C-alpha cells in the first residue's frame, strides 16, 4: 500500500516534470530569454571588463564575485562545522590514526605515490594559475591538491602526514580563500571603485596593464590554497582517533 502510494506520487511528479519540460523554450534557441539579456553582455564585455580570457572565470570572480565569496565562506564554514563536531587537534600534540590491523602499506603503492605527488601538485598549480585563460581555477586546483593529500595520508599514515603539514602551516592557510578575496575587494575600494571591482590603486595600476589580471590570479591562488588546506584539515579531523601518541615540546 505504502509502496503503491509512493509509486503514484513519483508517477505524478514525473508527469508534472515532463509537462514542464515540454513547455520549456527549445534548447540553444537564440531567442531564449536566458540568451537575450545577460549573456551578450558577458560575452562581449567580459574580456575588457574583467581582463580574463576565460569568460567563465570572469563571471565567477568578477560579475558574480559576491556569490563566489559566499561559496568560499561556505567551504570555510564546512571546516568550522567539522571542527565543532570533531574538535581541533590541540596545539603541540601529535595525533595518529591507529592502524590496529598492523598491516603496513604496500611498498609498490608507496613508491608510486612518492613518485606521483610532485606531478599531481604541479598539475594543480597549473590548474590554479591558468584558471583565467583555460578551464579550471582555484576550486578545482584546490580539490586536486586535496586529493593528493588524501592519498598521501592514507598511504603514509596520519602521523607522518600531520607532522609534515603541521597545524601551524594549515591554520593560517585555511582562511586564505576568504582573506585574499576580501583583501582584493578592499583593494578595489582603495583604488577608487566599489568593493570587488578588481582595481589597483592608481599608482600601482600605472606600472603595467597586465597587473590587473594578476588580481584575479591572486584570488584563484587564495581559493586554491584555502580549499586544499580545508580539505586536508577535514580529512585529518575525520580519520583521527582520540589517541595522542606524542607531545612535542
Amino acid at each position, binding site marked *: 500500500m505504502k509502496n503503491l502510494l509512493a509509486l503514484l506520487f513519483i508517477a505524478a511528479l514525473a508527469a508534472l516534470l515532463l509537462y514542464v519540460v515540454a513547455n520549456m523554450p527549445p534548447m540553444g534557441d537564440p531567442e531564449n530569454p536566458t540568451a537575450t539579456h545577460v549573456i551578450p553582455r558577458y560575452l562581449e564585455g567580459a574580456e575588457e571588463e574583467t581582463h580574463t580570457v576565460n569568460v567563465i572565470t570572469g563571471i565567477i570572480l568578477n560579475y558574480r564575485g559576491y556569490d563566489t565569496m559566499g561559496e568560499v565562506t561556505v567551504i570555510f564554514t564546512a571546516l568550522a562545522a567539522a571542527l565543532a563536531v570533531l574538535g581541533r587537534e590541540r596545539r603541540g600534540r601529535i595525533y595518529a590514526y591507529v*592502524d*590496529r*590491523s598492523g*598491516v603496513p*602499506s604496500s611498498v609498490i*603503492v608507496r613508491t*608510486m*605515490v612518492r613518485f*606521483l605527488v610532485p606531478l*599531481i601538485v604541479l*598539475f594543480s598549480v597549473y*590548474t590554479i594559475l591558468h584558471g583565467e585563460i*583555460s*578551464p*579550471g581555477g582555484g576550486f*578545482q586546483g584546490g580539490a*586536486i591538491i586535496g*586529493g*593528493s593529500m*588524501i*592519498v598521501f595520508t*592514507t*598511504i603514509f599514515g596520519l602521523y607522518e602526514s600531520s607532522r609534515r603539514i603541521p597545524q601551524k602551516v594549515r591554520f593560517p592557510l585555511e582562511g586564505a580563500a576568504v582573506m585574499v578575496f576580501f583583501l582584493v575587494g578592499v583593494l578595489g575600494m582603495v583604488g577608487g571603485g566599489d568593493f570587488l571591482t578588481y582595481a589597483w590603486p592608481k599608482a600601482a595600476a600605472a606600472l603595467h596593464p597586465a597587473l590587473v589580471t594578476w588580481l584575479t590570479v591572486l584570488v584563484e591562488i587564495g581559493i586554491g590554497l584555502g580549499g586544499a588546506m580545508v580539505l586536508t584539515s577535514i580529512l585529518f579531523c575525520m580519520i583521527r582517533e582520540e589517541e595522542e601518541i606524542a607531545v612535542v615540546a
Partner: protein
Amino acid sequence: MMDDFLTVIALIISLNAVICLYRAAVGPTTQDRVLGVNIVGTKALVVVVLVTFIQTESFFLDVALVYALLLFVVTVAVSRYLEAEGWKEVA
C-alpha cells in the same frame, strides 16, 4: 567522417562501461566492486579523450588527466582502507 567513426567508438565504449557496472553492483566481494569502478573510470577517461577530438577542444585533455589522477587516488585509498581496517566483509 572521422568524427562519426570516433562517436561510434565512444558509444561502444560507453555501452561496455555499462556492462562493467554489473561487476561493480553485484560484487560479490568489495574488491570486485572497486575493480569494477576502476574499469568504468578507465573507460570514461578514454571517452573523454575521444570527445576531445570529436569536438576539437583540446582543454578536455586536462579533464582526462584529472580523471586519471582521481582514479588512481580513489582506487589506492579505498584498497588501503580495505586492507588495513578491522572491517567486516559483507559478502
